[in-house]
């Protein structure tokens, strides 16, 4: 099943609005937006521009922090991590396209802490699906989906961004 460009845009708009409310409510200004490669980095860059922040968003290649190296190895095709500013004492907005088992988020948080000690980390995802394996929840979610084990969610992009549910 394919989401249209407009349907995906609606979800993006929803997370942008929720993020603005979250920042206001928690009195956070000047956060650092960090996206997880590849889909999360696209969304992070979209948010960076929509929120009117200067420069490019940061991005993480969590390849080297995964917990399944002994089974899956490394993927050389993933873009390197780009952390252009110091994250010490900053509020981090961590962005990913899909929250599934929570293992990617766990790896991303580990990597973030190798760059410094942020004040807080807020997790933003476009889609949260069933299948959680770790005690990790998103603060801002575009849409929650119940999917069978034979399905995967894919974000096509970067322009336009469009979600798709595919067979594994």
């Amino acid at each position, binding site marked *: 099943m394919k989401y249209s460009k407009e349907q995906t845009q609606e979800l993006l708009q929803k997370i942008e609005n929720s993020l603005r409310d979250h920042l206001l409510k928690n009195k956070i200004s000047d956060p650092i937006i960090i996206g997880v490669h590849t889909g999360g980095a696209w969304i992070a860059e979209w948010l960076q521009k929509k929120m009117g922040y200067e420069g490019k968003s940061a991005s993480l290649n969590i390849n080297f922090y995964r917990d399944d190296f002994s089974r899956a*190895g490394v993927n050389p*095709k993933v873009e390197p991590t780009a952390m252009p500013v110091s994250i010490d004492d900053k509020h981090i907005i961590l962005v990913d396209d899909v929250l599934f088992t929570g293992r990617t988020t766990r790896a991303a948080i580990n990597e973030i802490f*190798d760059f410094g000690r942020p004040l807080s980390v807020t997790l933003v995802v476009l889609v949260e699906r069933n299948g959680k394996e770790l005690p990790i929840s998103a603060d801002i979610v575009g849409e929650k989906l119940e999917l069978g084990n034979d399905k995967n969610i894919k974000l096509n992009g970067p322009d336009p961004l469009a979600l798709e549910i595919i067979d594994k």
Partner: protein
Amino acid sequence: MSEINNFDTEEEKDNKSDIVSQKRLSHFLDIEYLSKPLILDILDLAESFAGVSGQPVKKVPLLRGKTIVNLFFEASTRTRTTFELAAKRLSADFLNINVDFSATKKGETLLDTLRNLEAMHCDMFIVRHPLSGAAEFISKNVSPNISVINAGDGRHAHPTQAMLDIFTIRKYFPDFKKIKVAIVGDILHSRVARSLIHALRIVEVPDIRVIGPKTLLPNGIEHMGVKPYVDMDEGIKNCNVVIMLRLQNERMDSSFIPDEHEYYNLYGFNPKRTDLLAKNGIVMHPGPVNRGIEISSEVADGERSVILQQVSNGIAVRMAILSLSMQPQRDK
């Protein structure tokens, strides 16, 4: 030529594609059997690892719980320490076996030393040895779960040095197909030159030159796809990259050059020769540098020199090679 197979199966060698579709590199012994996509994958992965050295915590947890052993039967500073740093930045446990003081000096055979290290549940041996083929010999005599990395064997090969050299070249000249590269000096005794020529040919560098006195150019070197020159000025003209090699006196069993002063005049990279390079041309050297013999201090420390970048890049490239060689076999 060795019969090293860097892939797990013969089919793997025939079906060269990128690392994602391949099983792991079981050993990293030589460069000539690697495919272009695989070499480019290693360079891309090294690009990601290069960022780790700039992090406040210069470490990633990829090889946590693995034990890597440096087994060096020959002196080395850069290669030994950059392998050690690469392993430590991947969070592996690391042992340096100093063969000069080890049990082999007390009469233990190499195979007995290997068996003992295997019994300590080591996962990888990084081997440097003065004899060609030593790393391959060791790879054939260890348990199948142990990877062997060749860190230089005799005159035969130094594949990780070649990888870090082409990684450095790509930083300055991203399109290998548009550059001219010259390797200057003691080609005859150089395992670096041999591995580098293979690497440059695989990534399709169209113009590879080797420059040196006839006594230091192997007979038939042109069959490796390179152009030999005895005139340094003619050879380096319009080159984008010039790689200077050290005179390997320790591997010379007779007189190959009249004297070092004469050698410097004919083949040393002096500041005047910089003008012969292509615009933005770079000068490289695998180290250790003999100042005033193959290169002047002015050039070695000058703006065209990327010698220290080569050292830094060596860590990232070796991190890539260690992690790819330690990958799981996907059919298990």
